[in-house]
């Protein structure tokens, strides 16, 4: 098992190294003459005005929130799916209850307008 993950580890190291080598070698080689114009933020040719930080709309947050809840549901589904075959009807009912309660949650969020994008 360890040897499987050794491959993963080597992949990570190699990819990090690839990126590191590319950036570092470029930094070593290029001339360093910074100017005010060159350091300013690139905005497709326009002159940048104000700070780059904009306060986002709350709808992004609501979607991420709903996603967390259903992501947790998904992991329970994974755990259940592994044993599903040996559980029979009982297992089906257990998970059906779980899913229906969360389905109710989804319908509630939907009807209360938390999922409206516009």
């Amino acid at each position: 098992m360890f040897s499987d993950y050794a491959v993963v580890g080597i992949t990570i190291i190699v990819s990090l190294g690839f990126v590191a080598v590319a950036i570092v070698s470029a930094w070593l080689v290029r001339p360093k003459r910074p100017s005010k114009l060159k350091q300013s933020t690139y905005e497709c040719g326009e002159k940048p005005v104000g700070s780059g930080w904009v306060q986002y709309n709350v709808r992004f947050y609501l979607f991420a929130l709903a996603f967390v809840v259903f992501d947790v549901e998904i992991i329970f589904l994974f755990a259940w799916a592994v044993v599903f075959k040996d559980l029979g009807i009982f297992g089906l009912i257990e998970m059906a209850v779980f899913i229906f309660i969360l389905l109710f949650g989804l319908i509630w969020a939907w009807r209360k307008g938390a999922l409206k994008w516009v």
Partner: protein
Amino acid sequence: MKIDINWALLSPELTLIGGALVIFIVDLIFRRRARYLHLPLAIITLAVASWLLSSLGWNYQSTVADSFFTDRAAIFFKLIVYLGTFIILLLAEGYRPLSRYPLPEFTGLILLAASAMSFMVSSKDLILLYVSIEFASIVSYILAGYMRDNVESAEAGLKYFLFGASSSAVMLMGFALLFYVSGGVTNLPAMGQALVENNIHPAFIIIAFGLVAVGLSYKVGAVPIHGWVPDTYQGAPTPIAAFLSVSSKVAGIAVLLRIIIWLLPQESAIMGPWTMILSFSAMASMILGTTVGILQMNLKRLLAYSAIAHIGFVLIGIIVGMNYVTYTGNDFGKVSVLIYVAGYLFMNLGAFAIVNMIGNATGGYELHHYRGLASRKPVLALLLAVFLLALAGIPPTVGFIAKFYVLAAAIKADFIALAVVGILTSVVSLFLYARVLKVMYMDKPPKEEIPSKPIPAPSWAAVGLCLLGTLLWGIYPGPLIHFAKFCVKQIWLQ
């Protein structure tokens, strides 16, 4: 594979959850037409749950691989939680600051919190215990911060959440350590037995239990994790502050009692230090609650510090109870905890109810709003006087009976220092409550007329119930004491 489920045991909790879901669904389908349905639905749910609970039988039963159980003390604690929830629902009806916020969800969430607390009291398994503690806490955070446009409410919810999340993390660390050394057992009594069998060094158990105690201390609001109590009680909607001060605390007390009895081995190397630590916590709670409470100007904050002091008293009972686990003869410790918890429900909810009513009518919770209340609203002033005197422990109220029993248990078990601190702080607390009485009865009312809106009827019902409990059990405590003794006569270690 199949597992045996005794549905009857689970029926009260399932009813509460089902009732909450029904309230949500009714609100979704009928919207504004069913505005007034959520309170009756909630009360019916609570009534059915209480009926199912009382029909469970007084013997110990457990289900689902011994993770959920019921016994006499569990039924007692759960009845207290349900009764508290009922009174809170009455108080929340017509609470003006909440009218801008969705009320059916509020009621549904209160029912879900009650079901979570119910699970807490009945859980024998570490995983179920932790999940239900978190469930109760999360719903409580939401309820405390429900009036989100109100800065104080948002602060209350946030502070409660920050304290709760960090205490819960520390508690989980303690549980993880105990889980590890007990050989991977999650059933709590079995974990306790394994701790003895595996010959774990006492220092380890003391420290691991200390981490667990941090989390439980947060739930009941005792020193040292009491910091959230004043700000949360002050900022949260008043019915929720009352809810936290009773139902949540009672569930926490039930869990604390069980955890101590199941997990702490009876050897003096562990019981000795832990008795000392809990004694410090109890004494510090009583002293801090009464002394700092005297300085408070806001009624809700005053009641919060009073709650901290009272939990110190309950801890005395728990300390006596834990040292005499198999002493079934005169187990005053546990009996006193049950009596105190029952009495505290009525006294504290009564005081909160009056504060709620006055706040609802006049919009003020500061002491200067109460000036000359006796001449303006004599009935409310008298009722508040009764409840505050009960909290101070004056006969013939149930407060006196409760304190008497706790102190008697402490003296009988030779915890003289605790008893002395208890008596002294009771005297000091009299001064704390008398301050409010003085302002109500002896100060002149303000020149301008404070506009006062009518008080909704359910609040009066709630107050009536609390008054009945406070005075009836104070004058004729026999049935309550008998019931408490009955509930304690059971095997605690299984």
